[in-house]
C-alpha cells in the first residue's frame, strides 16, 4: 500500500507498509498516543480559521521539503504530470489541503487559483456562505432595475457599482505577495494550517536534521507497527459506537483515544474537524488565534519526526497537557466548527437548510423582469453556482470545471423535473489538465461490492469497519489495508484516507484492470500530399512543428511512430533502425490495401530518431512537385487501421480535399445557393457509413483518429467527422487554409499543432458514469462510442475534450437528500501505466420547484441544450432544432410564471439565476452551427456542431457569448495580483454595438480568437502606447499581435491578455480590427444582442417570447 502523492520523482528505497502490520510493536507508544490525541481537534480548529495567509505560503514550502521522507515509498511516473505547463514543484505533495478546500482547487491556471485565494480572506468572516466558496457573482450584481433603462453607455454605471465586489479580490496586498511565491501552495488557510500540523514537523526534519533515511525508516516503521497493533486491540475492545458524532462533542478528549474508533467521523462528510484533529496530532504547540503557523511549528518540527516517530508520537501528550489555555480555546472553536455535526451525522440530514446560504438562494430566485432590466451581465464572467450543500460537503465537492450539473439542486421526481422545464444533465471534462491530483497506489482499490462505485468523500462510514455506498446504499466492509492512512501514517482512520478526502483522485490500477498489457504510446501520421495539399502548403509547417516537438511527444522508451502519405496511391515509410535513410514504399492497389512490411513501418522513436528527423526534413521537398489531384483517403485510413490494429494508438489525419478515390469516396453535396437559405441546411449527416464503420473498428482496436481538415473547398466534413466522432478523436478545421494568403489560419494551425502534439494523452480508455439509484443516464454527447448504458469506450482520451450527459429521474429520490454522480476514467498513460481517474460530484435533492430554479446553472443548461439541438438538427431538421431552443425559453418562462412567481406583474419574468437564459439562447441561435439566413458554408456549420459537442463548457460559453471588455480606460482598480504581475479586471459589457464607442478600444474574447476593436476616435495615447502606432490611420490592416512596449498601459493590456490566455488549452490569436476595416463584419456578427439582417435583436427576441407565452 504505497501512496504517492507528490508530483516529483523521488529517489529512495521502495518500502511497503503492509508488511509491517503484523509485527508486534511495543505497546507504549500507542498508549501515549491515546493521550496525545484528545487535544488534537482543539488545536486544529482554531488554526484553520484564523491563520493568516502568509502562513499558508510557508506551509507550502514545508510540504515540499516534506515529500522526500513522507512519500519515499514509491517512484511513480510523476513526470507524467510534469508535462503540464503549470505543474511546477510548488504543489503540496499530497494535496489534501487544497482539494479538500473545495471545488476550486483544480483550476486550470495559477492565475485563477490565486484569484480565489485572494477571495478567500474576504470570505472567511462569512462563515455561512462556506469557506472557500467563490463569491457568487450575483451578489454584486447591481439590482437597480431601470436605473439605466436604455441607451446610454452604462459602463460608467457598472464601474462604480460593480467595483465594490472587485475590491475584495485585490484588497489584500500582503496576501498577494505571499501568493506570489507560493503558487497555489497557499491553499486557504483553513486547510493548510492543519496539514502543516500533520506534516510540517516532518518537513522540519527534512530541513534541519539530516538523518540517514534508512535508519529513520526502520525506526519509524517499528513504532508504526506498534501503533497499529495496539489500535487493533483497542478496536476489538470497543464496540463500534452507533451514534457517530455525538462523541465528538461530549468527550473530545476521549473519542479519538486509540485512534481507532472512527465514530467521531462516522458521518458522511469528510469532516473537517476530524481531519484537523488527525493532522493536529503532531502539532502540540498552543496556537494563539492570529499567530503564524509556521513560526509555531518550527520549534516543534525539530523534534525529528521521521527519525523518531515514537518520540513524535509522545510529543503531543506532554505538550498538550501543558497548554490548557489553548486547549480551551481550541475546544470552543472546535465545538463551534462542528456544531452542525450532530445533525449532519446522518446523511439525510447532511444538507437541509443547514448549509445556510439563504441570501444567495434568495438572490438566485429574485424575479427579474427581463423587459425592464437592461444590465444583466455580472461584472466578471459568470461562475458556476454553488450547490446548496453543507460547507463540509461543499469543500470536498468536485470542481465545477471538471464536473458540472445543469441543476445544482436535483429535483426529487421526474414530475418535478418536467414541471421545471429545464433539462437535467451533466457536463464533464474528465481528463482536464489538473494542477494537483492525489495519485494513489494501493493494492486494493476500495469499491462498492454491488455497484462497483469507488469509495469517495460522500460515502458514510457506519463504523470503523463498514461503509455505506452513496450510490446504491449497500453496506460494504472496509478492507484492512484501507485502515492505514499513509498521509498521516496513522492506523484506523479510513475516513481520512485521500480517497475519502478528495473528490478527484487517481488510482494506479493493478493488473485486474487490464485486458492486455498496457500499450505503448503509438502515433501514426497520415498526411495528404496531393496537389491540393502542396498548394495549401501545410506539410512544411507540420513537419517543422513535429520536428520541434518530437521529444515532447508524450511517451516513454517504448513510444512508436509511423508515417503514411497518400494521394492517389499510398506511401509507407520504412524507418527501421540501421537504414541510412528512410525508404518509401508505394502501394498503388488502393482497392485492396495491404501492408508492405509489418515490423519496420511503426518504429521505436528512440531507436530511429535520426531517421524520423531525416524523413520530416525531406518530406516537404519530396512532394513539392506533386501533380496528383486525387485523394484516396479511405484506403489510406484502412491501411492506417491495419498498421495500428496490433497495438492501438493515435492516428492523426491531415486532409485537404474531398476524398475522390477508393472506398469512402465522397461527392460534393453542398449547393452554394442554399448556404444562406432560411429554411435550414441539408446534408448535415454523413453521406456514407464507411467512416463510421471504420471508426467503430478502430474503436474496437483502441485506435483513436484525429482529423485535421485544411480545405478551402467543400470536403464533406459531415461524413469525414464520423471517423473521429466514434473513435473518440478530435476534429480541427481550418477553412481556406493557405500558408501565404491566410496567415491567420496558419498561425492558428501552428499553435494548435503545438498543443496537440504535446498535450497529455490516455490510451485504451473507458469511462463509466454512475449515479445515485433512481437517476439514470439518458443520452451521451461528445466523441466516443457508447458501449453500454453507462459505459463510454474512448480509444484515446485527450485533455481538451468534454462530454455531456442527459439524465432522467427514474425513481423518486425522496428517501435520500443527496444525489451523487461518479465518473471513472480508466486509461493507459503515455508511460504505460494503467490509471483510473475518479471524479465524484454530490448535489442536494430538493422537492420544491423554487429550489430547483435557485440551483439552476444557466451556462450548463445552455451547453446541454446546444448539444441536444445539434442532435435534433441531425435527426430531424435545423429549423426544428431552432424551434426547440426557442420553446425551451418559452416553456421556462411560462412554467416559472404559473408555478413559482406569485407576482402579478406583466412582462417577462425569470428567476435571477436564469436571467441570462434568453440571451444565451439567442446567442446560440446566431451561432454558425444553428443560424439560418446568413451565408454559412456547410463544412463550417458542421465543424461548429462538432465543437459544440466536444468543447468544454467555459470554452463553449466564450464562443457562444463572447466576453467584451473596454480596454482604453483599463485601470488597476480592482485588479488581480498574481505572482509579480497585476492583472486588471475590466468589466464585462453587453454584446451590443451601443456599448462600443468610437473613442474607445474594446477587446472581444471569443474563446479561440480575440478581436481588439479600435474606434475611429480612439485615444491616440492608447494607440501609441499599446499598438505602437503613431495614430489611428497608421495601424496596419492585418495586425495580429500586440507589441511589447514598456508603457504602463501596454503592460496592463498584455497582462490582461496573458491572463486570459492562461485559462485555455489552445492559445488564441488576436486580431486588431479597425473601425473601418472589412474585418469589422466578423466582429459585429458576435454582437448577438443586435439585430442583424436575418436575426432579431435581443429585445425583439424577448418580445417574441412574451407573445408565445401569452398565447
Amino acid at each position, binding site marked *: 500500500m504505497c501512496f504517492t502523492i507528490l508530483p516529483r520523482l523521488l529517489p529512495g528505497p521502495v518500502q511497503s507498509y503492509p508488511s509491517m502490520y503484523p509485527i508486534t510493536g511495543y505497546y507504549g507508544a500507542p498508549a501515549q498516543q491515546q493521550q496525545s490525541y484528545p487535544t488534537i481537534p482543539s488545536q486544529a480548529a482554531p488554526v484553520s480559521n484564523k491563520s493568516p495567509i502568509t502562513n499558508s505560503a510557508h506551509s507550502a514550502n514545508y510540504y515540499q521539503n516534506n515529500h522526500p521522507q513522507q512519500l519515499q515509498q514509491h517512484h511513480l511516473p510523476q513526470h507524467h504530470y510534469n508535462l503540464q505547463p503549470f505543474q511546477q514543484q510548488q504543489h503540496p505533495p499530497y494535496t489534501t489541503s487544497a482539494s479538500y478546500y473545495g471545488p476550486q482547487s483544480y483550476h486550470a491556471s495559477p492565475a485563477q487559483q490565486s484569484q480565489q485565494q485572494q477571495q478567500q480572506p474576504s470570505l472567511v468572516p462569512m462563515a455561512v456562505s462556506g469557506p472557500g466558496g467563490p463569491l457568487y457573482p450575483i451578489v454584486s450584481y447591481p439590482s437597480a432595475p431601470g436605473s439605466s433603462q436604455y441607451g446610454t453607455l452604462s459602463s460608467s454605471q457598472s464601474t462604480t457599482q460593480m467595483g465594490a465586489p472587485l475590491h475584495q479580490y485585490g484588497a489584500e496586498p500582503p496576501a498577494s505577495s505571499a501568493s506570489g511565491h507560493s503558487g497555489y501552495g497557499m491553499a486557504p488557510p483553513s486547510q493548510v494550517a492543519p496539514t502543516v500540523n500533520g506534516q510540517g514537523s516532518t518537513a522540519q526534519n527534512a530541513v534541519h536534521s539530516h538523518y540517514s533515511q534508512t535508519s529513520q525508516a526502520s525506526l519509524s516503521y517499528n513504532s508504526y507497527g506498534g501503533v497499529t497493533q495496539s489500535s487493533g486491540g483497542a478496536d476489538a475492545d470497543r464496540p463500534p459506537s452507533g451514534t457517530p458524532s455525538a462523541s465528538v462533542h461530549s468527550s473530545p478528549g476521549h473519542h479519538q483515544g486509540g485512534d481507532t474508533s472512527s465514530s467521531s467521523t462516522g458521518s458522511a462528510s469528510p469532516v473537517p474537524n476530524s481531519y484537523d484533529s488527525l493532522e493536529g496530532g503532531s502539532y502540540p504547540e498552543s496556537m494563539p488565534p492570529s499567530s503564524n503557523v509556521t513560526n509555531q511549528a518550527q520549534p516543534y518540527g525539530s523534534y525529528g519526526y521521521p527519525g523518531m516517530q515514537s518520540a513524535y508520537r509522545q510529543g503531543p501528550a506532554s505538550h498538550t497537557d501543558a497548554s490548557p489555555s489553548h486547549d480551551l480555546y481550541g475546544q470552543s472553536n472546535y465545538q463551534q466548527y462542528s456544531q452542525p455535526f450532530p445533525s449532519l451525522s446522518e446523511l439525510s440530514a447532511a444538507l437541509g437548510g443547514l448549509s445556510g446560504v439563504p441570501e444567495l438562494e434568495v438572490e438566485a430566485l429574485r424575479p427579474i423582469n427581463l423587459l425592464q432590466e437592461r444590465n444583466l451581465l455580472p461584472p466578471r464572467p459568470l461562475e458556476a453556482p454553488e450547490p446548496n450543500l453543507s460547507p463540509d460537503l461543499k469543500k470536498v465537492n468536485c470542481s465545477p470545471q471538471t464536473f458540472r450539473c445543469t441543476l445544482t439542486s436535483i429535483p426529487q421526481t421526474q414530475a418535478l423535473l418536467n414541471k421545471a422545464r429545464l433539462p437535467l444533465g451533466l457536463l464533464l471534462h474528465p481528463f482536464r489538465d489538473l494542477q494537483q491530483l492525489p495519485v494513489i497506489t494501493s493494492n486494493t482499490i476500495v469499491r462498492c461490492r454491488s455497484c462497483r462505485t469507488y469509495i469517495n468523500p460522500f460515502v458514510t462510514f457506519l463504523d470503523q469497519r463498514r461503509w455505506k455506498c452513496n450510490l446504491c446504499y449497500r453496506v460494504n466492509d472496509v478492507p484492512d489495508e484501507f485502515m492505514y492512512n499513509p498521509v498521516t501514517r496513522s492506523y484506523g482512520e479510513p475516513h481520512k484516507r485521500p480517497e475519502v478526502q478528495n473528490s478527484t483522485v487517481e488510482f494506479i490500477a493493478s493488473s485486474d484492470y487490464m485486458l492486455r498489457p498496457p500499450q505503448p504510446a503509438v502515433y501514426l501520421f497520415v498526411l495528404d500530399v496531393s496537389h491540393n495539399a502542396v498548394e495549401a502548403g501545410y506539410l512544411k509547417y507540420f513537419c517543422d512543428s513535429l520536428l520541434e516537438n518530437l521529444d515532447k511527444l508524450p511517451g516513454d522508451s517504448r513510444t512508436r511512430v509511423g508515417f503514411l502519405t497518400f494521394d492517389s496511391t499510398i506511401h509507407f515509410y520504412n524507418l527501421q533502425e540501421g537504414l541510412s535513410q528512410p525508404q518509401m514504399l508505394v502501394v498503388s492497389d488502393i482497392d485492396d490495401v495491404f501492408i508492405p512490411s509489418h515490423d519496420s513501418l511503426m518504429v521505436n522513436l528512440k531507436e530511429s530518431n535520426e531517421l524520423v528527423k531525416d524523413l520530416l526534413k525531406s518530406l516537404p521537398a519530396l512532394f513539392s512537385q506533386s501533380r496528383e489531384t486525387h485523394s484516396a483517403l479511405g484506403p489510406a485510413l484502412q491501411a492506417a487501421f491495419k498498421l495500428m490494429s496490433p497495438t492501438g494508438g493515435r492516428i492523426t489525419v491531415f486532409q485537404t480535399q474531398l476524398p475522390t478515390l477508393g472506398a469512402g469516396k465522397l461527392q460534393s453535396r453542398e449547393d452554394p445557393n442554399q448556404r444562406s437559405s432560411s429554411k435550414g441546411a441539408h446534408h448535415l449527416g454523413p*453521406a456514407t457509413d464507411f467512416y463510421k464503420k471504420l471508426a467503430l473498428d478502430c474503436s474496437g482496436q483502441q485506435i483513436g483518429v484525429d482529423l485535421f481538415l485544411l480545405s478551402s473547398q467543400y470536403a464533406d466534413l459531415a461524413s469525414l467527422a464520423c471517423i473521429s466522432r466514434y473513435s473518440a478523436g478530435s476534429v480541427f478545421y481550418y477553412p481556406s487554409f493557405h500558408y501565404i494568403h491566410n496567415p491567420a489560419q496558419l498561425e492558428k494551425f501552428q499553435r494548435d499543432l503545438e498543443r496537440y502534439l504535446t498535450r497529455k494523452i490516455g490510451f485504451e480508455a473507458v469511462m463509466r458514469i454512475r449515479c445515485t439509484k433512481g437517476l439514470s443516464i439518458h443520452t451521451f454527447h461528445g466523441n466516443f462510442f457508447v*458501449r*453500454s448504458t453507462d459505459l463510454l469506450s474512448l480509444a484515446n482520451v485527450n485533455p481538451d475534450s468534454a462530454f455531456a450527459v442527459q439524465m432522467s429521474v427514474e425513481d423518486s429520490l425522496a428517501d435520500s437528500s443527496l444525489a451523487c454522480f461518479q465518473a471513472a476514467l480508466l486509461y493507459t498513460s503515455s508511460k504505460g501505466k494503467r490509471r483510473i481517474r475518479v471524479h465524484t460530484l454530490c448535489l442536494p435533492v430538493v422537492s420544491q420547484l423554487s429550489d430547483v430554479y435557485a440551483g439552476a446553472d444557466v451556462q450548463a443548461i445552455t451547453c446541454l441544450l446546444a448539444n441536444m439541438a445539434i442532435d435534433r438538427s441531425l435527426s430531424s431538421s435545423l429549423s426544428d432544432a431552432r424551434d426547440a431552443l426557442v420553446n425551451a425559453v418559452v416553456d421556462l418562462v411560462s412554467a416559472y410564471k404559473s408555478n413559482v412567481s406569485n407576482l402579478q406583474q406583466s412582462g417577462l419574468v425569470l428567476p435571477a439565476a436564469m436571467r441570462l437564459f434568453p440571451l444565451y439562447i439567442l446567442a446560440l441561435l446566431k451561432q454558425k452551427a444553428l443560424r439560418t439566413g446568413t451565408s454559412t458554408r456547410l463544412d463550417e456549420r458542421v465543424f461548429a456542431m462538432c465543437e459544440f459537442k466536444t468543447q468544454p463548457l467555459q470554452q463553449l460559453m466564450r464562443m457562444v457569448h463572447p466576453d467584451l471588455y473596454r480596454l482604453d480606460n483599463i485601470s488597476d482598480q480592482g485588479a488581480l495580483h498574481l505572482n509579480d504581475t497585476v492583472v486588471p479586471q475590466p468589466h464585462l459589457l453587453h454584446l451590443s454595438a451601443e456599448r462600443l464607442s468610437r473613442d474607445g478600444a474594446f477587446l472581444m474574447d471569443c474563446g479561440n480568437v480575440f478581436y481588439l476593436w479600435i474606434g475611429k476616435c480612439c485615444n491616440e495615447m492608447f494607440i501609441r502606447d499599446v499598438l505602437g502606432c503613431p495614430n489611428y490611420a497608421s495601424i496596419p490592416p492585418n495586425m495580429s499581435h500586440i507589441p511589447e512596449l514598456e508603457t504602463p498601459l501596454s503592460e496592463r493590456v498584455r497582462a490582461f491578455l496573458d491572463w486570459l490566455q492562461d485559462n485555455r488549452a489552445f492559445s488564441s490569436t488576436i486580431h486588431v480590427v479597425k473601425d473601418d476595416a472589412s474585418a469589422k463584419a466578423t466582429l459585429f456578427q458576435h454582437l448577438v444582442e443586435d439585430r442583424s439582417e436575418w436575426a432579431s435583436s435581443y429585445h425583439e427576441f424577448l418580445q417574441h417570447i412574451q407573445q408565445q407565452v401569452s398565447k
Partner: protein
Amino acid sequence: MSLFELIITWGLIIAFDELKTDYKNPIDQCNTLNPTVEKVKKIKRVKIAIKLVLPEYLIHFFFCVMFFCAAEWLTLCLNLPLLAYHVWRYMSRPVMSCPGLYDPTTIMNADILAYCQKEGWCKLAFYLLSFFYYLYGYAVSSDRRTTQHGSV
C-alpha cells in the same frame, strides 16, 4: 409461419432487453440484428446467428402476399398498416451500406432503445393476436370444409 414471427419478435425483445441491462456490446448486438456479409465470421463465432429484423419483415411480407392471393381481404387489411410501417421504417433507417435497421452508435440512446423495445412489445402483441386469429380462421375453414364434405 406465424409462430416464426412470434419467436423472432420475442428474440428481438430479449435482444434489446439484454442491451438495456448491459449484457451485450452494441456492436455485437447490432451485428446479430443486422445481417451483414462481412460480419458473418463474427456471428459464427458468437454462434447465435439470429439475424432477426429482415426475416421478420420478409415473413410478414410473404404473409401479406399470400393473403392477397387467397383474397383474404379482411386479414390483408389488418396487416397492411404494419406492412406500411415496415416499409417506412426501412426507408428511414440510418445511413448504412449494408441491409439492417439498427445503428450501433445510436442504439444506446435512451430514447431509441426505449422506442425499439416498445416497438418489439407492440409487435409481439400484434403477432400473438394474429396467430390466434389465423388459428381460428384455420379451424373455421377446415370445419367448414369437413362439414361441407360430410354433407355431400
